[in-house]
């Protein structure tokens, strides 16, 4: 925004400038480059046409005469791209020469050698890579990061940082060689470079280092990398720099940041980045948010206070899974926090988005997290459960609990169990009306003890409400107990007496005793007397 010194009056559109150019003009002479380009374009066009018409004339294999063979193994693979390794061929013999060049005091030799090393490292599985990653080569590369005497210094810095980036991307040992060589402070220093290519490459290298471990991240932060990185986010930055900075920042956020003020500062930046239209920036921003949300309730509270939740919720509807995945991970984390924090999500309209995620063709991990978010919300207050019901999500959950993929199925059952356990009597009646009893009864054959216990809790709440109904009913039966029996729930409940878990065993017995055993006339007698039977 700084007020640009643009003229405060708009330029009037007089044709004068165009005319001035026409004065004694020799167009052809002054537009040499455009003319040469046009010439090359013409040449190109005619070459392209030549190539095409040559092929068109080439009728030796006219398809009308040659029956189309089924594509099979008959034809050998096209010859392996023997020259696919564009860099190392020529260099493989003179690694020593390269290292000598690197150590030379002559700039052009340094640059040449650095480029060669970088290329060796750029090719996956290059056999020379191991020989290059030695302490003294890396140390020299780190030294070259400070090169500035030459007008092409920035190029050397980029190349050296690039090579280090590639090394840091390797094994933990490789990253350690880089950090031990003192690369971090020098790379941080490069973030002040006036050359955006240099800054970009330095960020990349730091991002790779930060990805290694919490110790590495702290190393970067301790050397001022954090502050320097944040200063990269300014309106003058070009998009590629912003992308890189966002990615590196997200890597730093992977671990808990040392101080609250740092988290705050990051959130301020992330808040702005969330309005970006660039998918890459958006995606990495959301990853950063999701990492932050992973660090605990303090961080989640700060995320909420930074007021980005509404924007995050909007982004759930972004067209790219690359954005939606981190967003739903972040929101799922928030949904696991305290009730009042969860309320922010509901207020931001998350319940309008989640059904879409669950019903449309999204990757499984997204659906899974979406379902988990729902079940977390179902574990909340009565008002929050009501919000779920109002959003007409219960039928959807029931459907997912029957037909969803295994993980999603489980999450849907969790959601229903949570809602029935915590719901008010009216809510429970509504849930039962939607068919929750069947869902919970069917779940009684699962082997996940926690989930089983939750289901039993849910059924218990339902049956309690059923007892109240019983009072109203002249016949005096618990209608929900009847429903349970009808859908085979009682049999499954009885089977649970054999389940090897004390809590579940006790809960099962409690249910059987409270709702069936004392009133055996209404149902079949239990197959075995309950141990607590008096």
């Amino acid at each position: 925004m700084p007020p640009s010194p643009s003229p405060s009056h708009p330029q009037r559109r007089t044709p004068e400038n165009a005319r001035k150019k026409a004065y004694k003009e020799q167009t052809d002479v002054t537009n040499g480059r455009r003319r040469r380009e046009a010439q090359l374009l013409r040449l190109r066009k005619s070459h392209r046409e030549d190539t095409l018409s040559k092929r068109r004339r080439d009728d030796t294999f006219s398809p009308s005469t040659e029956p189309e063979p089924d594509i099979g193994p008959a034809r050998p693979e096209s010859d392996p791209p023997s020259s696919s390794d564009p860099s190392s061929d020529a260099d493989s013999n003179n690694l020593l020469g390269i290292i000598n060049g690197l150590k030379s005091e002559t700039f052009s030799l340094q640059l040449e050698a650095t480029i060669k090393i970088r290329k060796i490292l750029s090719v996956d599985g290059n056999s020379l890579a191991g020989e290059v990653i030695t302490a003294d080569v890396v140390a020299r590369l780190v030294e070259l990061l400070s090169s500035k005497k030459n007008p092409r210094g920035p190029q050397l810095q980029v190349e050296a940082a690039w090579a280090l980036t590639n090394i840091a991307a390797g094994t933990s040992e490789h990253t350690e060689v880089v950090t031990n060589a003192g690369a971090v402070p020098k790379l941080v220093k490069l973030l002040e470079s006036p050359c955006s290519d240099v800054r970009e490459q330095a960020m990349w290298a730091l991002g790779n280092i930060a990805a290694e471990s919490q110790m590495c991240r702290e190393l970067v932060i301790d050397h001022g990398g954090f502050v320097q990185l944040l200063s990269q986010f300014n309106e003058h930055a070009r998009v590629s720099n912003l992308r890189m900075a966002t990615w590196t920042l997200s890597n730093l956020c992977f671990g808990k940041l040392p101080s609250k003020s740092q988290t705050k500062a990051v959130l301020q930046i992330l808040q702005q980045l969330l309005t970006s239209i660039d998918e890459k920036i958006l995606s990495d921003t959301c990853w950063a948010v999701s990492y932050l949300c992973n660090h605990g309730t303090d961080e989640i509270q700060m995320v909420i206070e930074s007021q980005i939740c509404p924007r995050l919720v909007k982004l759930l509807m972004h067209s790219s899974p690359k954005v939606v995945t981190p967003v739903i991970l972040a929101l799922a984390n928030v949904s696991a926090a305290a009730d009042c924090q969860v309320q922010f999500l509901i207020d931001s309209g998350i319940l309008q988005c989640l059904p879409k995620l669950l019903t449309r063709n999204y990757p499984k991990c997204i659906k899974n997290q979406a379902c988990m978010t729902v079940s977390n919300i179902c574990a909340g207050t009565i008002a929050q459960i009501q919000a779920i019901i109002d959003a007409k999500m219960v039928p959807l959950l029931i459907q997912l609990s029957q037909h969803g993929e295994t993980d999603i199925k489980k999450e849907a059952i969790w959601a229903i169990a949570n809602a029935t356990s915590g719901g008010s009597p009216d809510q429970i009646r509504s849930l039962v009306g939607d068919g929750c009893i069947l869902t919970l009864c069917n779940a009684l054959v699962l082997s996940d003890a926690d989930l089983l216990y939750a289901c039993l809790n849910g059924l218990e709440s339902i049956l309690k409400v059923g007892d109240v109904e019983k009072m109203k009913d002249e016949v005096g039966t618990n209608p929900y107990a009847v429903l349970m029996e009808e859908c085979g729930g009682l049999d499954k409940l009885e089977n649970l007496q054999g389940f090897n878990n004390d809590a579940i065993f006790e809960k099962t017995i409690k249910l059987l005793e409270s709702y069936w055993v004392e009133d055996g006339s209404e149902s079949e007698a239990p197959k075995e007397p309950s141990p607590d039977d008096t």
Partner: protein
Amino acid sequence: MALEVTQFLLNAQSIDQATRTHAEESLKQIQEQNLPAFLLSLSAELANDNRPLESRKLAGLILKNALDAKELHRKNDLAQRWLSLDLATKTQIKTALLQTLSSPVSNARSTASQVIAKVAGIELPHKQWPELINSLLSNIHQVETHVKQGTLETLGYVCEEVDPQVVDQDQVNRILTAVVQGMNASTETSSEVRLAATRALYNALGFAQTNFTNDMERDYIMRVVCEATLSSDVKIRQAAFECLVAISSTYYEKLAPYMQDIFNITLKAVREDEEPVALQAIEFWSSICDEEIDILDDYRSEYTGDSEVPCFYFIKQALPALVPMLLETLLKQEEDQDQDEGAWNVAMAGGTCLGLVARTVGDDIVPLVMPFIEENISKPDWRRREAATYAFGSILEGPSPGKLAPIVNVALNFMLAALSRDPNNHVKDTTAWTLGRIFEFLHGAAVETSVITQENCQQILTVLLQSMKDVPNVAEKACGALYFLAQGYEDEGSVSPLTPFFQDIFQMLLFVTHREDATEKNLRTSAYEALNEVVRCSNDETAPIVMQLIPVIMLELHQTVEAQKLTSDERDKQNDLQGLLCGCLQVIIQKMGSIEGSKYAFMQYADQIMDLLLKVFASRNATVHEEAMLAIGALAYTAGPNFAKYMPQFYQYLEMGLQNFEEYQICAITVGVVGDLCRALEDKILPYCDGIMTQLLKNLSSNQLHRSVKPPIFSCFGDIALAIGENFEKYLVYAMPMLQSAAELSAHVVSQDDDMLEYTNQLRNGILEAYSGILQGFKSSPKTQALVPYAAHVLQFIDTMYGGREMDDAVMKSALGVLGDLADTLGSHVGPLISQSSSSKDLIEECMVYDDPLIRESAEWAKLAINRAVSG
């Protein structure tokens, strides 16, 4: 909740750097924390007459910059941002802005005017702020002059900012009424108001389409404008003439009844009025020439043979009086105007207009100008000699060579003598330019009787080369003249009369490039361009001499690459020089590559040239990169498959070029070079294709890349597929959806304007070239099956385009090619599909009888291939 921003705004203009930075930071922070409150505060600041003018102006400027930007993306973002603000805030801001129009401080009013226009530019197309025009118009009836003035200024800016379609005719009528009344000297006494009204009319003219069709309304507007050209205030006169200029291009066909009056008015202004007014009066005639040249071009064009607007031949009718008026202006030269880059005066404008008149009327102008030339060309007063020469040079384009040649034959010796001996630099400058024009228009294979003969050629060269040692502006024109002289011998075969002088020419041009003052007046550039043209138009016979240039140019390039420790000024010059040298190498490489006997000898330099070019890429200068890339493209063609050995080093720069979105011309040129490399390397490009394709696909999906780069990228897909054949298979899954969605977009585009139509056709052509390349690349491969699923879409694309009827010839030809390629490569798999597509059959039949033989040829090919596919 307006914030206190005055002090920040004042500090932001402080001379003290620290204060300024701090204030800018604070403002930025406020904006980031609470944009609505920030904008509101700015508008309140602007509206508050108790605040210092400096803070008010800056407030307005920041507000304006928060609404509009030059860069289209940013502009759209800002508009979106404004629209999404809450209604209450926007209303408050707009109220404050309108209120500012009543401020007694003229600068504040003017600033508010511009901001209002920006808001209007955003809101009116969305049908928001419907009351704006009315509330502005209600101000017009205010008594206070300054309110009227501010309001008219605002109306002008609003008209400049918004599209005429956005405002309904009723409001247009009232705007025009208010503006024209404001111009009327008999009812409006304030000259400030009249000036604002006249300037507003300039912008409002685009809204007056309907009003100009109504005789009464048009008469009234024209009368008021013409009266305003006679105002006692020079600024009003200038603004009124600017209106006339705008009318001449927008409403050419309505001008006939007024031309006599306008002629008298302009004649008086050119002769007697102050320069800014006189310049606009001349511009009126230049603009009429532009219109008539366009119309007459349309008349002559084979394509239409007609024009939407008829030609009224205003220039032809005015000729007997117009030409003397323009000739008079030629005598009003300024001392040393050719030394001053920014100079623009009556003499320059008059001569430029005379040139346009000559292009409009052709032969008719010659007898009217000749007496002036004959009378003045030998006068002792340099002004007379220069004016006569300039008049001569100006009329060389337009009249027929038959009419001019006899005159030029007489004048040539005189001109050559003047160029060597006239004591005045200005005269020599114009003489050299005139010689260049003679060579440009009266010499060359296309001209029946060239004025240059074997005999006078030597004399001409001697004089031109001699003049290259003259002062920079004269030397520069001499280089330009040599350029056109060489160009005339382009198709001369081996008998070019320049051949014996090649050594001398090169020597002199290289000498010029080394002149200490070579960076003045573009001299060095002109010398290199002349050198390039001599090389480009040379023939086999002179190839050995051209070859000798290579080490010379390489040495110079080497020196620029090695130069170190330059000041930024030196660096700029260095970059320019590098660009010129790379350009020169490109031309030489192309020439040597095209002469079979020289190719082999040339290749001995290829390693060194490549080495140098790679070093040049280390430079970060856009122009230099473009030139170096073009040279690489040329080298690839000449080297062929041998270029493969350079790829390992070159690849990184290729990739860098493809990634350069900001300097999109570099990206475009690099995309072209990928095509060159494909043709040169064929399957040897395979190892690099993953990287190239990844980047190209990225480029296509980016909305930051300039759109003009996208069609060549599609063509490039075709080039790659042709080079690597069935190995393209793995890219199909990415490339085909891109092609399909682009095809859909381009097939359904409703082109509102010619630019868009042209772009759409380029895009279509690129897509079709991609399809052709891919299809032919897979031809006779066992993997052709992989293409079958896409065939229906390709056909549908051609169907839709054919139905839309907006294909240009190039697209038509490519579409026919693709039809044939589908049949050729996929054979019986698509035979039935093509037979079902009636429009492809119609297209082929239609094109079989086309005038253009290339289109006929393509149609025949398509028909043949399809017949084979259907019967086979």
